[in-house]
C-alpha cells in the first residue's frame, strides 16, 4: 500500500515538474536568484545593486515613457518605502500596515491595517514564499498571507529591542530586522515561524575590546535604520551603523566609539561579528554609515575580488574586500570636504582641526545632512559605474553648552555654501567621477536610484521630478513631475512583457511604462 502511494506521488511530482518546469523554485532560490520581473527586496537583490536586467525601456525609447497609474496611499504622507513586487503584486508598507495592489493596474487587492495607524517613516517590507511581513508600532512582527493579507502568525519581538523603519530582509530562511534602541542592533527570526534566533548589538559588552573605545562612558547610539545587503556564498550580512550618542559632542566619550559609524559584516547563521570598518571614528557630525553597501564581483588592480562599495555620509567613497573587510580604496566623491585631508592607508580619516560643533557654530563640509544619506545608490554591471545621489554644501553645527554633553544641538545650512543635489556616476573601482546631473532646486536627502540593462538610470528628484538619465552620459532622456517631495527609491518590474517603473512620491505611488505597449 505504502509503495503504491510512493509511486503515485512520484508520478505526480514528475507530472507537475513537466507542467511547471523551471517555475517551481523555493522561496530561498527566488531570493538568491531573483526573477527580473520581480523586485523582491529593498535593494532589488541581495547585492543591493538596484540594477535590473530588464531592457524593454532603453536610452533610445525612454522618451516614450508615460504614467500608467497612480495609487493614493490614504493616510500616509512623505512615503519612503521601496515597493516590493512579487508575481505581479506590489506591497507598499508602513508600520502596522501593508497595501497590496495589482502592479499592472494600480487597483488595490487588499489592505492590512493594525491599530493604531502610524505615520512613522518605514522603508519597505520583505517577502518569502507566500508571506509578507509587517513591523508593528507595539513591537510585534506579523506575517501576512501574501494573497489575502490574512494573518499567518504574530509574534512579539525580543524586548527591549525596538525595530526601526528600515526594510526587513529574508536571508538564509531568517527574517532579518534592525533597530536603534536601546542601541543599534540586527536581529534574526525564523521567516517561517517567527521564532527568535539571534541578536547582534552595536553596543559592545565590557568583555569586548571595543568597549574600551568609549573613554569609560556607556556605549550609546549606533542606530541601524536601513536595510542591509547579503552575500549568500559567504553567509555574511552587511549593515551600516549610525552615530554615537550624544550626537554632536564628543564630551565624555573619548575614543573611537565602536561600533558606531561602521560597516559591519555579521554571520547570518550565528549573528556574530565577522569584521567591521569604522568610517568616522569619534563622530561629532552625525555621519551615520547606514548608506547602503553595494556588493559586486570585479577585478581590483588586476585581482578578482568580492568587493563592497560604499559612499558614506562623511564624503568618502570606499571600496573593501567584503570577505574580510580589507580597505582597498577611499576617495572623496564631493568637492566640498574640509573636515579631513584624506585617509590613511588603513582608511582612517586624517582630521583637519577645528571642526567640533561649538556654541558660536562651526562650519563643516559636508553638512550633517551628509554628502549622501539613506537614499540608496545603484551599480550597473554594464557600465561599472556606481550611481549615487550627492549633496554638495556645508553646514553650521551648534551646541548650546560647551560643558554639558546633553545640551541642545542643531545644524543649519551654511549661507556661504548652500546645498545642492546631484546624481553622480563614479567609476566603481577607481572612485573617479564620470558624469554628474544637477537636480535643480533639490538640496538634500532626495530619492534613491536604479539602473537597468536598457542603459538608463531612473533618477527621481527631491522636488518631485522623475528623470531618466543615460547611464553612460547622465543626459536626461525623459521626465515627469509627480508634484510632491520624493524621498523613496524606485523599482522596476515586468508583467506580461511590459516593463514598469514605480516610485513613491509624497502620498502616492506612481507607475510608468512605455506609451505604445499594452
Amino acid at each position: 500500500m505504502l509503495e503504491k502511494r510512493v509511486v503515485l506521488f512520484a508520478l505526480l511530482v514528475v507530472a507537475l515538474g513537466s507542467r511547471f518546469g523551471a517555475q517551481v523554485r523555493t522561496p530561498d532560490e527566488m531570493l538568491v536568484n531573483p526573477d527580473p520581473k520581480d523586485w523582491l527586496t529593498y535593494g532589488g537583490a541581495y547585492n543591493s545593486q538596484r540594477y535590473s536586467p530588464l531592457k524593454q525601456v532603453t536610452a533610445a525609447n525612454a522618451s516614450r515613457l508615460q504614467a500608467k497609474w497612480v495609487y493614493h496611499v490614504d493616510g500616509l504622507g512623505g512615503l519612503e518605502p521601496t515597493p516590493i513586487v512579487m508575481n505581479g503584486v506590489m506591497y507598499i508598507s508602513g508600520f502596522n500596515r501593508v497595501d497590496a495592489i495589482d502592479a499592472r493596474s494600480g487597483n488595490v487587492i487588499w489592505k492590512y491595517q493594525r491599530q493604531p495607524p502610524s505615520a512613522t517613516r518605514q522603508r519597505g517590507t520583505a517577502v518569502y514564499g507566500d508571506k509578507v511581513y509587517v513591523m508593528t508600532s507595539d513591537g510585534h512582527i506579523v506575517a501576512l498571507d501574501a494573497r489575502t493579507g490574512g494573518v499567518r502568525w504574530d509574534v512579539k519581538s525580543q524586548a527591549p529591542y525596538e525595530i526601526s523603519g528600515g526594510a526587513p530582509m529574508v536571508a538564509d530562511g531568517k527574517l532579518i530586522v534592525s533597530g536603534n534602541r536601546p542601541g543599534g542592533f540586527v536581529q534574526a527570526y525564523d521567516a517561517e515561524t517567527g521564532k527568535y534566533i539571534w541578536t547582534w548589538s552595536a553596543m559592545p559588552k565590557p568583555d569586548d575590546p571595543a568597549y574600551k573605545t568609549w573613554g569609560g562612558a556607556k556605549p550609546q547610539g549606533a542606530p541601524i535604520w536601513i536595510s542591509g545587503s547579503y552575500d549568500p556564498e559567504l553567509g555574511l550580512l552587511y549593515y551600516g551603523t549610525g552615530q554615537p550618542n550624544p550626537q554632536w559632542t564628543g564630551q565624555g566619550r573619548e575614543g573611537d566609539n565602536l561600533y558606531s559609524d561602521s560597516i559591519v559584516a555579521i554571520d547570518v547563521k550565528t549573528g556574530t561579528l565577522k569584521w567591521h570598518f569604522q568610517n568616522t571614528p569619534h563622530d561629532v557630525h552625525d555621519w551615520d554609515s547606514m548608506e547602503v553597501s553595494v556588493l559586486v564581483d570585479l577585478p581590483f588592480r588586476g585581482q578578482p575580488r568580492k568587493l563592497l562599495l560604499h559612499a558614506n555620509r562623511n564624503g568618502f567613497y570606499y571600496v573593501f574586500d567584503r570577505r574580510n573587510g580589507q580597505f582597498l580604496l577611499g576617495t572623496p566623491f564631493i568637492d566640498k570636504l574640509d573636515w579631513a585631508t584624506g585617509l590613511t592607508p588603513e582608511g582612517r580619516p586624517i582630521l583637519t582641526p577645528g571642526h567640533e560643533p561649538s556654541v558660536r557654530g562651526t562650519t563643516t563640509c559636508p553638512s550633517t545632512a551628509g554628502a549622501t544619506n539613506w537614499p540608496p545608490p545603484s551599480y550597473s554591471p554594464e557600465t561599472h559605474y556606481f550611481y549615487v545621489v550627492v549633496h554638495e554644501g556645508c553646514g553650521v553645527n551648534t551646541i548650546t553648552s560647551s560643558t554639558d554633553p546633553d545640551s541642545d544641538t542643531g545644524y543649519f545650512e551654511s549661507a556661504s555654501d548652500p546645498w545642492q543635489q546631484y546624481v553622480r556616476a563614479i567609476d566603481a573601482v577607481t572612485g573617479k567621477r564620470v558624469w554628474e546631473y544637477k537636480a535643480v532646486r533639490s538640496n538634500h536627502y532626495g530619492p534613491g536610484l536604479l539602473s537597468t540593462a536598457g542603459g538608463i538610470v531612473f533618477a527621481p528628484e527631491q522636488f518631485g521630478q522623475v528623470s531618466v538619465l543615460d547611464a553612460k552620459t547622465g543626459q536626461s532622456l525623459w521626465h515627469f513631475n509627480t508634484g510632491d517631495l520624493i524621498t523613496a527609491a524606485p523599482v522596476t518590474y515586468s508583467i506580461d512583457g511590459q516593463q514598469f517603473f514605480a516610485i513613491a512620491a509624497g502620498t502616492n505611488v506612481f507607475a510608468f511604462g512605455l506609451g505604445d505597449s499594452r
Partner: protein
Amino acid sequence: MKRVVSIAALLVTCTAGPMVAQRRGGGPGPVNPFLGNEQAVREGESLYGQHCTTCHAPGGGGGEIGPAIVSGDRADIGVNDGQTFNTIKNGVPGTRMPPQRLTDEEIWKITTYIHSLRGTAFDNPMPGDVAHGEEVFWGKGQCGTCHMLGGKGGLTAPDLTNIASMRKSSTISAALTKGQHHEYASGGAHLPALPPDGRYLPVHVTTADGKTVDGVLLNEDSYSIQMIGNDNQLHLFERGRLRRIVVDPKSLMPTDYDKRLTAAEFKDLLAFLTRQGTVAPPSPRRGGPPPVEQ
C-alpha cells in the same frame, strides 16, 4: 488630511495616528494659567530640554522616536493648551508617549513653552506703534517697492498681506536682519516640507532668439523656470529652449533693517508686520483697532 495628520503628530510618539489624536484630550481641556507669561515660557523651555528631548528634538522638532511637535503652519494651533497638557500628563495609551511624572505647574510651563513655539506672529504680535510701522513700511523702509500688501506695492517679492498668519514673529524679525534664516531639521529628523529655496532670487534669462528677460524667480526645476519679469509679467520657460540662465544666489532683500532704521522704527515696523494676517473669524486689519493678543 494633512492637517489631521499634523495634529496627530502633536506630542504623540511616532506610533500614533489620526484616530489617537481625535481621542486625545476629549475636549478643550483645562485652561492654561501661564498664557502670556514670559517667565513660564523660559522655565518651560528648560523643562522641555530636560524631559522631552529624549524623544522629540530641541525646539519642538521631530526626534528619532517622537514626531515634531511644532511645524511652520497654523495646523499646530488645532490642538489647544488643555489638550497638550492632558497629553503630557497622561501620555497616549498604545504609543510610546508615556505619562510624565511632573507637577501640574511644570506641565503647564512646558505647555506654555510649546504654545510659544507654535503660535504665528498673529497670535503673538510684537509691541509697538502699528500706525507708525505702516508709515515705515511704505516710506523709509521702501518695503512696498518690492512687496505687495493689501493690494498695493510691488510684485518682485512675496505678498505680505497675510504674513503674520503664516510666520512666527521671530521668523519675520530674522527675515529683516539675517541673510540666512532657514533652519533645517536636526539629523535624522524628517521634514514634511522644505521652505521653497531660491524663490524671488534675481534671474537673468536669454532666449534662443537672443531676447533677454530679467526678473525674479518664482520657481524652477531641472526642466523649467517660472519667473516674474521686471515688466511685471509672468514668464514661463522650458530650460532646454533657453540660451542662458543666470540665477543670482543673493536675494534682493536687504537684511540690515535693524541698522538702516532707528530702533523705534524697526520695532514699529515689526509691530505692523506681525499684525498683517487673517484668521477665522476674519477681522479688519489696517485702519481698525489692533487685534487682541490671543
